[in-house]
């Protein structure tokens, strides 16, 4: 298991030392979210109605933005070959990279989400559920997105392709995350959608590394 934490630690250190990546994702998240009021108008009840949906769609796009280089960078400098010959199987390597991506991209979104909650006039209790939905949802984004990142290693124009591959697979996470936050705003039961969101994450944890490992193996040929 030392391999797992070694990869996570290195990626986080690279992100911190590289600096700009996670900050830019955060800035994109806030900037894109505050554009909508210019489109739909600043009326509180409109913003409150679309708030959870907009925040989540923009969070999803932000998380996906930094995925393209997740494996391609290692492929280009030869690190992927060495990771594939390291003691740990490729599936563990994939899981470590996905968790590192979540720590450097998914988690920071949680910090900015309440700020956007204020911009969108969300009622008090909605903030807690918004954070809970992001806590349960963003890891799935990193895991599912990681499979997409592994698939496009070595492909031409990987960025656009990644969005086409991954966004349809993000729909279930988006639906249940926003359903939870909407539920608290319209006093409907929150538990069901949060439970399903957690179930999606529990399913993604074993399945995505399995698919991601298979995809990475193709990239080594």
């Amino acid at each position, binding site marked *: 298991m030392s391999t797992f934490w070694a990869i996570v630690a290195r990626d986080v250190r690279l992100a911190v030392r590289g600096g700009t990546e996670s900050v830019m994702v955060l800035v994109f998240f806030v900037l894109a979210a505050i554009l909508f009021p210019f489109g739909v108008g600043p009326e509180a009840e409109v913003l409150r109605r679309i708030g959870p949906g907009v925040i989540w769609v923009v969070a999803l796009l932000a998380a996906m933005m930094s995925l393209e280089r997740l494996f391609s960078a290692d492929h280009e400098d030869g690190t992927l070959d060495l990771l594939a010959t390291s003691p740990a199987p490729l599936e563990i390597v994939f899981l470590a990279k996905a968790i590192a991506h979540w720590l450097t991209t998914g988690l920071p979104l949680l910090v900015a989400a309440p700020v956007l909650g204020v911009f969108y006039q969300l009622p008090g209790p909605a903030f807690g559920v918004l954070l809970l939905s992001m806590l349960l949802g963003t890891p799935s984004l990193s895991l599912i997105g990681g499979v997409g990142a592994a698939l496009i290693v070595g492909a031409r124009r*990987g960025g656009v*392709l990644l969005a086409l*591959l991954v966004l*349809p697979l993000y729909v*279930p996470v988006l639906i249940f995350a926003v*359903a939870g936050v909407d539920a608290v705003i319209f006093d409907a039961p929150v538990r069901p959608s949060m439970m399903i969101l957690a179930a999606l994450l529990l399913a993604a944890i074993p399945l995505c590394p399995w698919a991601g490992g298979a995809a990475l193996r*193709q990239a080594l040929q």
Partner: protein
Amino acid sequence: MANLHRFANPAQFQRLSRALLPWVAGITAILFVLGLYFALFASPPDYQQGDTVRIMYVHVPSAWMSLFCYTFLAVAGAVGLIWRHPLAFMSARAAAPIGAGFTFIVLATGSLWGKPMWGTWWVWDARLTSVLILFFLYLGHIALSRAFDDPARGAKAAAVLALVGAVNVPIIKFSVDWWNTLHQPASVSRLAGPAIDSSMLPPLFLMAFAFMGYFFTLLLIRIRADLASRKVQALRVAALAAAE
């Protein structure tokens, strides 16, 4: 590990497909004629929806085909990945555009059916929305298989995506159903298909089998074209080597 002698024999497939193609095409043609006859002439209009039900004879079979093609894609991809079988990859690459075509037909005829029924070209009904996402899964598969210089690499990546997609299709269907019931505006009744009474079954199944026949006809044609073009490439490489 697949060792040398257990390779697929493309030449054998060429002979097989050359013999099979006319039969499959012939049966498909007959099915189409029968299907259209039943669909357009021999069956009564629906008491509620009138003649728009004839759109259903095309809409529903192509919906079945769009799901069948994606399952075919996932199975062919899995066989290719496990046994490194070139014909499996080629049939997956041949089937993807056909599946996308059928899915496009479902969406187009669905909207043409929705307009007279609900006055709008697009209804965010659970089934239509799931088919819309399935359409993008197809586009993703086709784009990924063509995103690499080496076709074999593209086929394998697309095969993994097809497996991931196949696992996700039921999850997407479930979540879209949930989302649909959550946001069910009172006015738009669910796009329930018309009560299918017995007189509608013959055209429906005839058209479904006709589409299935069409799928295999096109599959054979596209695989043979793929094999021939790869043979041309192989001969060109050999000619280059001989010329050195």
